[in-house]
C-alpha cells in the first residue's frame, strides 16, 4: 500500500488507477454515502485509470481529472475520498 495516495493530494500530471472510494468525513455537506454515489456517477469506480489534467490557480484547486473518455472537475477536498495507486506500479 506504499504507493497508494488520496487523489485529493495528487500532483498535476499524476496518472493512476482508482483503488477504492472511501469518504471519511462529513466536510462536504452531504453524507459519505451520497458523496460516494456522486463520485461513482462521475465515473470514479475501482479499476479505472485517471489522470490529473489541470488544476486551479489558487491553492491548486479545483482539479480536472481525465477518466476514460470524459473529463470531470472536482475540488481536492472531495477527491480525498478517492484512493489511487500509481499506474507505473501496476505494470
Amino acid at each position, binding site marked *: 500500500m506504499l504507493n497508494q495516495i488520496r487523489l485529493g493530494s495528487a500532483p498535476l500530471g499524476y496518472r493512476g488507477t482508482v483503488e477504492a472510494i472511501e469518504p471519511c468525513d462529513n466536510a462536504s455537506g*452531504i453524507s459519505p454515502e451520497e458523496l460516494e454515489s456522486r463520485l461513482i*456517477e462521475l465515473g470514479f469506480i475501482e479499476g479505472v485509470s485517471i489522470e490529473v489534467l489541470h488544476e486551479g490557480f489558487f491553492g491548486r484547486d479545483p482539479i480536472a481529472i481525465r477518466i476514460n473518455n470524459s473529463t470531470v472537475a472536482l475540488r481536492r477536498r472531495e477527491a480525498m475520498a478517492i484512493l489511487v495507486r500509481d499506474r507505473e506500479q501496476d505494470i
Partner: protein
Amino acid sequence: MKIALLAKPGVFALVGAPNCGKTALFNALTGSQQKVANYPGVTVEHKSGRLKSPSGWDISLIDLPGTYSLRARSPDEEITRNIVLGTMEGEAQPDLIICVADATNLRVGLRLVSELKRVGRPLVLVLNMIDIAERRGIGIDIKRLSSELGIDVIAASAVRRGGTDDLVYRLDDLAAANWSANTESNWTPPEPRELRAIQREADALIAQVISKPAAPDTLTKRLDKVLLHPAGGLLILLLLLFTMFQAVFTWAQPVMDLISSGFDLLGSLARDHLPDGLFESFIENGVISGVGSVVVFLPQILILFTFILLLEDFGYMARAAFLMDRIMGGAGLHGRAFIPLLSSFACAIPGIMATRVIDNRRDRLATILIAPLMTCSARIPVYTMIIAAFIPARKVWGIIELQGLVMFGLYAAGIGSALAVSWVLKYVFWRDSPTPPFMLELPDYKLPRPRSVLIALLSRAQAFLYRAGTTIFAMMVLIWFLASFPRPPEGATDPAINYSLAASIGHVLEPALAPIGFNWQIDIALIPGMAAREVAVASLGTVYSIEGGKEAAEQIGHALANKWTLATALSLLAWYIFAPQCASTLAVIRRETGSAKWMAITFFYMLALAYCASFLTYHIALLAGAG
C-alpha cells in the same frame, strides 16, 4: 386501438445526461414546433414539441431536464424522475422513454439505461453524436448492444442533415404500437453498492460492443492546455468578459437608440392624435413610455444571451465555473453561481432565473440574494446623468479620466458588496451548513450550432417581451396612476406630479430621507423608479419641469447641478448601488424562491445597505466640504 391512439397523441419523453446533445436532438426533431412553459409550482422549464411521423401519427415530444441518474438531486432532476416514474401530478407518464446517450461517452448513458429499464416503460436508446464518434474512429456494434440490452438502439446525429431519419422512422413504428396503460416500476434509489454494480455492467458491455477505442479528442486537449491554464486561463476569461461587456454596452447602443426613438415617436403620435386629457396621458406616459423603457433593454439582453449561449454550446461555461470556483468559494459562493451573476450585469431577472442550475438550495438562495447588487444596465442612465453633471471631466494622475474612474468605482462597489453579503450569509448565518461539493463534467468542445442558439435566443426574447407586456406593464400602470392622481387643481402652476399621490408619498418619505441628503423632489422620483431604475431620470425631469424627458438627460443634469449639492448627488449614487429599486426583480425573486419571505429579506437588506451607504456618503461629503 388505432382510433384511441388518434384521439390522444403518444407522449414520448427524451431523457439523458447533461451534454449528451439531447436538446439539439429535440430541436432537430420538432423544429420550431415547440412550447416552453413552467411546470406548475416549480420554475423548471417544461419543453414540449410536436412531431408528425411519416405515416401521420401525432407525437408529443417532451424534453426532460438532463440528469445523470434518477436519484434526483436538484429541482430539475426531480422533475425528470417524477415524470419518468409517473408520480408527477397532472402529468401523464410518457408512453415511451427515449434515452439519449452521447455515442462518444457511453458510460454515463448506459448506466442511465439500466436505471430506466427498471421503470418498466417502453424504452429505446438513441446513440446521439454518432457523427463525432465515427470521426474519432469509435466502432460501436449497435446490433450487439441492442440484443444485450434487450431494447431498440438507434444511431442519430442531431446536426448532420438526415441524421435523424432512422430515428424518425423508428418512432413512426413505435407510435403505431399498442401501449399498455400501466406498468409496475421496480425502480428504487440505488445505493453505492448497486451503482457500482450497474457501472461495472455498463463498462463490461462497452468492452463488448466497442470494437475500436476512441482516439482522444486532441483538439479539446490542446484547447484546454491554454483555456484551463492556471494563470493564462483566468486571463483569457477576463478578456472574454471584457469583450462581452464592450459588446453589451457599445454594440447595443444604436439599436437601443432606435427603439427608444421609436417609442418616442409613438408617444408623440399619441400626443398629437389623441384628445388632451387623462386618456392621452395614460397612453403616452403609462403605456408607451412605460413599456418602452423596458423593451429598450432587449438588445442588451439578446447580446448578453448570445454570448452566454455560444459559450455554453461551445463547452466553455463549465470551464469558466472551474476557473472561478476558488475565487467565488472565498466569498462562500458556488462556482456555478458565476454565470447567473454575470447575466445580472445586464439585468438581474435573467440572472436570477439562471440560478436554477445550482442544486444546493442555500447556494442558490445566496446567489439570488446578491444578484441585484450587480450593476445592471438600468442603473447606467442614472449613473451617467449624475456623473456627467457633478463629476468634473478631468484626468487624475495624468492619464485616467475621473468620470470613468467613478463609474468603475460604482461597479466595483456593487461587486465588492455582493461578495461581502454572500460572505456574511455563509459564515455568519449559515455557518453550520458545510460547503456542498463542486463536481461537474467538462464536456469536449463542440462548434456551436447557429440553429440551436437561435431557437434558444428567440425563446428568451419571447419570455422577456411577455414579461414586459404583463408584469411590468401592470407595474407601470400603477406607477402612472400614483403619479397622475389626484389631478392638479384648476390654474395650478407646478407640474402635475406635485399634486399626485406620488408627491404625497414623497413628502411622507421626506423626514426619513432627509438625513441622507435627499429632497422631496428626489423622493418623488424614486417612486416611479421602482418600476425600472432608469425611469427615475425621466421623473426627475418631470418634477423639475424640464421638457424632453429621457432624451434630455444632459439637460436635466445641468439643471440638477444648480439645485443639488455635490453631497446629495454622491449620496444618490451610493443609494443606487444598493437600493432595491426594481419591482420586477423582487417579483422574480418571489417566484423563484417560492416564498414572499426571501423577497422581503432582499428588499429590507438592500434598503438597509442603501440607507447606511447614502448616510455615510452624505455626511462624509459634508465634512469634506462638499455641502
